[in-house]
């Protein structure tokens, strides 16, 4: 079942400088999709369109069989949440508890249920002991985990990660990637926006964007293989793939090594 259907989506600020051109995309329920592209390829704009922070110039977005427009945007935002890049600029509450509560307060959830959900989802992202902490006492990774809990608590079934790991240190980044994986295993539809190949290979499918256009849309394995696309889109090859290419160039046939390297690149 398709949970997101995008048809002929276009967006621009100035008509002569399109940011997104004629995007078509379907995402299945429970899928993990990566939107891959260089800085300025339009990937964050796509995320903002999906969550109704920007309005498309043409084309339609349907989420869970509901077309996104002025009237439906509020009900659609209950189904789709987003974790932004800068951990500081999305922390609304004065404490972790207040921040998780923020979305629930907006949904007019009764107080008793709110308290219950805060406990549950703080536990889910291992932030239970930090509930009374203020944001300046938390690391970037911890703040992003709070953001995830805040979205999960709203019982959202799609989460967009808009370069959510790019400002974190390796430990924080690994942790957030682990949560993405766990959530996806539990059936949450995940969309990650990144320029990091290592993150992209963890997902089911990859959409490669370049200058606002879809360059390729395929399974992670097929995109990885596609040297030409990756080169065109200014993205780097993973190291094991570079080795494979080198071996091919030199006409060295070592099938065992080749398939081993291939497996290695698929795990990131």
């Amino acid at each position, binding site marked *: 079942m398709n949970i997101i259907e995008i048809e002929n989506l276009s967006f621009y600020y100035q008509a002569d400088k399109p940011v997104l051109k004629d995007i078509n995309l379907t995402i299945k329920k429970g899928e993990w999709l990566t939107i891959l592209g260089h800085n300025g390829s339009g990937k964050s704009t796509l995320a903002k369109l999906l969550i109704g922070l920007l309005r498309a110039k043409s084309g339609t977005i349907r989420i869970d069989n509901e077309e996104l427009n002025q009237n439906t945007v509020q009900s659609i935002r209950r189904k789709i949440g987003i974790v932004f890049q800068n951990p500081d600029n999305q922390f609304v509450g004065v404490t972790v508890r207040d921040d998780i509560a923020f979305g629930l307060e907006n949904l007019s959830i009764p107080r008793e249920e709110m308290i219950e959900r805060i406990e549950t989802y703080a536990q889910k992202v291992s932030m239970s002991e930090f509930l009374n902490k203020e944001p300046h006492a938390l690391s970037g990774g911890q703040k992003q985990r709070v953001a995830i809990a805040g979205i999960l608590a709203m019982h959202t079934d799609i989460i967009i990660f808009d370069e959510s790991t790019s*400002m974190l240190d390796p430990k924080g980044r690994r942790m957030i990637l682990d949560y993405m994986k766990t959530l996806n295993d539990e059936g949450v539809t995940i969309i990650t926006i990144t320029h990091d190949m290592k993150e992209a290979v963890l997902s089911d499918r990859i959409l490669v964007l370049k200058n606002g256009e879809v360059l390729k849309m395929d399974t992670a394995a097929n995109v990885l293989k596609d040297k030409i696309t990756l080169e065109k889109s200014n*993205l780097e090859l993973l190291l094991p793939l570079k080795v494979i290419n080198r071996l091919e160039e030199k006409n060295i046939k*070592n099938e065992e090594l080749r398939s081993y390297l291939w497996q290695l690149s698929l795990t990131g």
Partner: protein
Amino acid sequence: MAIKFNRVDFKYQGFDNKGYLALSNINVSINAEGEFITLIGETGSGKTTLVQHMNALLTPTSGNVTIFGLKIDQENIKKKKFRLNPIRQKVGLVFQFPEYQLFEETVLKDIMFGPKNYGVDEATARERAIKMIKVVGLDESYLDRSPFNLSGGEKKRVSIAGILAMEPDILILDEPTSGLDPLGRDALLRVFNDIHQKLNKTIIVITHDMNTVYEYAKRVLVMRDSYLVYDGDPHTLFSKKNIENWNLDIPDIINLLHHLEKDFNITFPKQPQNVDELLTMIEEVAK
């Protein structure tokens, strides 16, 4: 010895008067020429605090730092007429976000701001701006543009040019490549390498990217919980056993090497320095 830390502690005063130790017993020396150092460690380990001591933005709570002959300790900074400002011309520090420093109407004026603060005349400052904008890989047409209408990578380059125009001997960069895509990151790293080699300046880069550390740095400093736990070359660092306890990533090259050694029982004659060397070595083995 350009910069020398001698048993430096630094404590941030908290609101609750308890404070928080950001540097503990730091002893390290840095040369004014020919070094390419990367500084790594978790968020909150004290990296930024350490580099802010190198140009005297912060001064030690105890111990002392000597920067180009000027000894900075609690006793000296209390003296009247003890001026720290000249130090900052010699040790240039580029902050993580270019937004912290860009403020002029044009890129040209912004790059000229630093040198002019140190009494460089208008014409020389302009000359330096024209030179430095090229050093950071942009062309002269950028000089008349507003620094606020540039892309993230371009802003970063302009902010670096603004520091370079002061002609510091040592250039320190706080997480210069975070948030850039691979192409932008590599281009910027090449700029640093150029500055290092052609202008013969010491470069210190704070980073979370271990590939940068492995492929560019001659020397690595590792901070952990306010202590300096490693000071040496990157190859020795990544062959250490306890590196995972420091919450550091493994560089791609080493990672691949370990996998091949473990699963294919291949032993490599030596650690490859860069991707090309690795490729050649694997090529040899695969034959």
